[in-house]
């Protein structure tokens, strides 16, 4: 806008100012591209500020000033709407990312708690199994001792049985001798 005003003015002044105005334009264009590399929102802010400078230049010229004011009025709501849309998009993106991060955090936290609980349960189970092992070892040793004692008892009873049998045979021999003696006495008395 401001460059058009300069061109409408006298010719020699426009000729003299062409090269610096082009340099300023290229500089502004480079600055815009650099800002666009960061965020789209920054472009909106830049255009808003650039639209302000023609309004400041308005009092110098009446006719072209009115035209520039009209153009500004038409462009300002569009720029504002675009800015709002971009802000909304960024806010939605930020809130979405935060929600994703929080959800992931909760999931990992739950996994951690469950693994800790499982670890405690398995440790307790290992301790109980160890104690049960000690008890079963005692049972095993006691039953082994009982088996040994029972075997010894059987051996001792076998020995007792043998001794009883020999004693019985001795009694039979004594009885036989007694009977013979009685028979001899009877025979002697009869004769």
């Amino acid at each position, binding site marked *: 806008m401001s460059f058009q005003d300069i061109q409408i003015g006298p010719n020699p002044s426009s000729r003299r100012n062409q090269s610096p105005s082009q340099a*300023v334009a290229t500089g502004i264009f480079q600055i815009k591209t650099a*800002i666009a590399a960061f965020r789209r929102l920054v472009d909106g802010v830049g255009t808003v500020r650039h639209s302000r400078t023609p309004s400041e230049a308005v009092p110098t010229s009446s006719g072209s000033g009115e035209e520039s004011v009209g153009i500004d009025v038409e462009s300002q709501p569009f720029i504002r709407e675009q800015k709002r849309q971009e802000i909304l998009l960024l806010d939605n993106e930020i809130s979405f990312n*935060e929600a994703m991060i929080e959800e992931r955090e909760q999931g990992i936290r739950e996994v951690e708690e469950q693994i800790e609980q499982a670890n405690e349960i398995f440790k307790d189970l290992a301790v109980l*199994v160890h104690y049960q092992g000690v008890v079963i070892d005692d049972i095993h040793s006691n039953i082994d001792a009982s088996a040994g004692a029972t075997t010894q008892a059987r051996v001792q009873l076998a020995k007792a049985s043998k001794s009883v049998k020999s004693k019985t045979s001795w009694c039979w021999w004594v009885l036989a001798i007694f009977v013979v003696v009685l028979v001899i006495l009877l025979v002697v008395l009869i004769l």
Partner: protein
Amino acid sequence: MSGSKKSPLKVAKPSSAESWTNPFDSDDEGKDSKKYSSSRKTSSERALATLEVNTNPFDDDIDANKKSSSTSYAFQSANRNRYKNDFRDSGGLENQSVQELESYAVYKAEETTNSVNNCLKIAENIREDATKTLVTLEQQGEQITRSHHVAADIDHDLSRGEKLLGSLGGLFSKTWKPKKTRAITGPVIVGDDPVRRKDNHLEQRDKLGLTSAPKGQSKLRTPPPEPTNALEKVEVEKKKQDDALSDLSDLLGELKDMAVDMGSEIERHNKALNHLYDDVDELNFRVKGANQRGRRLLGK
């Protein structure tokens, strides 16, 4: 002539004013962009920071991993120290540039991956302990069976002893017979075989489980060389985390199966111990009777 002279002066002044104001506008725009981007990053990083705070129990392991990695890469360790300092200083995040914030995000994602990997390691330790417990339970079952066999041998010897006690005694003494409440049965052998077959399957499953774990690790190793940008690195870290979590899920499934098998094994132990208790109780009764008989014989 005077009117024409005045007009070029007025035209020249606005052009110089515009040239003066332009660099000031550009500086303001740059500052605004930096502030806005830094505020956005700080909000996302704060959420990551809370995630880091929640994983505190694993800090020691993470430090150990960092120490091992710092020996190979001094520059990365310096950056990581800066990130830790930035994390501790709450105000420091806002003053950082966009690139450093992206590196900070990658760093936090790697920390999360390390936390998940630590969970996976703990689950593997649990599986090892569960395997040992299962083997111990199996050995105890076999020991109960052997004890029951020894009890059956005791029954055999005791029956012989009772016969000898019956044959002892004089011609005129009373005949003695042992009182038997119930017959002594050995361990239930029919029920043991299928359970032992299941145990063999369990051992095979454990071995297969041990072999499958390094395969998962090898899969995790293939993605790392691909990424170039910070965002791609964060995505790769997310994939690593998802893979580790899926491996963790499989591992927990195995732990569930092992726990169920432990339950069935302990149930079988309970039944075997009940049988052993009944048999030993009967043996106790018969041994008492035999002792009474022996005392009577000695008394004569």
